[in-house]
């Protein structure tokens, strides 16, 4: 990924991420998050993770966020009222955020001075075949645990949400 592409993707990512947490309307927040996730999918394509890019669109943008939107509409949430929160906490968390960002930038840029070049990519990096081969050999255990996890999610969601 060259620098131009990086910034063309990074700037909208940050902007829309900011909209997610700042917009008073939950629907707009959700839609900005969809945009963030779609841009991330593009980002993944440029980082040679083609399969993941598509999964990002199908799973995150296409399913999880639709679920969010569904619940927002089901509860018919309107714009948040003026946030009547202690101003001290707001200021504190803003300052905290700024400090954290600055710190991260500083630390990472310092450690990048001695950075190694990116490794050579093996044949078929990020393709379906490579991904599935790893999935069913080295990652067999996590794969099986995921099945239990999804079973729990299905059972749990039904138990909690049924009338």
């Amino acid at each position, binding site marked *: 990924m060259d620098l131009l592409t990086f910034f063309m993707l990074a700037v909208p990512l940050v902007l829309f991420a900011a909209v997610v947490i700042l917009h008073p309307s939950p629907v707009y927040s959700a839609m900005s998050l969809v945009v963030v996730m779609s841009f991330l999918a593009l980002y993944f394509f440029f980082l040679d993770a083609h399969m993941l890019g598509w999964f990002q669109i199908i799973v995150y*943008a*296409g399913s999880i966020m*639709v679920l969010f*939107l*569904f619940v927002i*509409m089901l509860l018919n949430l309107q714009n948040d009222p003026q946030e009547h929160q202690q101003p001290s906490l707001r200021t504190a968390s803003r300052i905290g955020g700024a400090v954290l960002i600055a710190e991260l930038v500083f630390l990472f840029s310092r450690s990048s001075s001695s950075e190694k070049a990116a490794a050579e990519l093996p044949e078929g990096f990020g393709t379906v075949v490579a991904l599935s081969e790893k999935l069913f050999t080295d990652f067999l255990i996590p794969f099986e645990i995921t099945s239990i996890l999804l079973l729990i999610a299905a059972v749990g969601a039904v138990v909690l949400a049924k009338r």
Partner: protein
Amino acid sequence: MIDIAISAILTVFILANIMNLGGLLLWVERKGSAILQDRIGANRAALLGKLPINIGIINTLVADPIKLFTKEDFVPPNADKFLHWMAPILAMVPALIAFIAIPFGDILVIGEREINLQAANLNVGILYILGMVSLGVYGVVLAGWASNSRWALLGGIRASAQMISYEIALGLALIGVVMTFGTLDLQEIARAQGHMIGGVLPGWGIFYQPVAFFIFLTAGIAESKRIPFDLPEAEAELISGYFTEYSGAKQATFMLVDFLESIIVAGLITTLFFGGWQVPFLMRDGLHLPGDIFYPLPSLLVTLVQHGAFVTKLAFFCWLQIMIRWTLPRFRYDQLINLGWKILLPIALANVLVTGLMILIFQA
């Protein structure tokens, strides 16, 4: 450079044809339903007012869009203007660009150059189309929310629940197909269906995955929100659901999206289950009939015949969906959700399991 140009030409070709087909389907729906129900159907719009012959096709094709596009574009008060305007576009774009992954022919040879008749040669075509289908929900849901009308909101809620539910069955049906052919590339899947089973039966997907076909057809119709699954727009209950508050060109867009979605479903069924552009016995170099009879044919002719076969199959499945629409009554909402979760999902899961077992048995 030339490759990009060719892709661009193919894309324009497809999009133009699909839009036309969408319009054509509108006429088929109006006139075809009339034939089906033993009535005359659309006959008011006559060319130049009073031409003796009523050329229904031209009239409807021209008159309906003109009518829709010249109507007032009304945005309800207190609606969210931005999203109200965005929703039709968000619905339209994924539906339109989903087509570019569907192959409509084998390789066209012009001079030295071999052109793959598929606008975008994606090696994960199935994932691409699934992605686009899942993004298509947003247009509908936002239309329902942005209109500031409870009918529209109910339609939007119904649409999101319905589309999420049926996407699962749809995806699982596709997994059976992918397991059979071992690839996510739609062109490869179409090519893999070129052989003959026992010399007589075409090796189409439906003979390998009959269960997946029925699940896919059902879930596909549900995804395109057409009768009997048109709960999101059920006019008897919700006026017209998520686009109740739309008029003019925006409403026309939503209607077009409906047709586009059924064309995608038809195209996918053709490609995955009915050999795509394959014609039985027709290979790239000519006709191979059983008993080692061989008629060589020019490559261009073969390609044209194959493309014709694709269009014919596509048209058939479009027509089938319209037939279904005018034959079956609408489901109730709980029936719809039960069908999706309690019937289609277990069957689709069982199908994946059985497919896996069969693969293991036949490879051993």
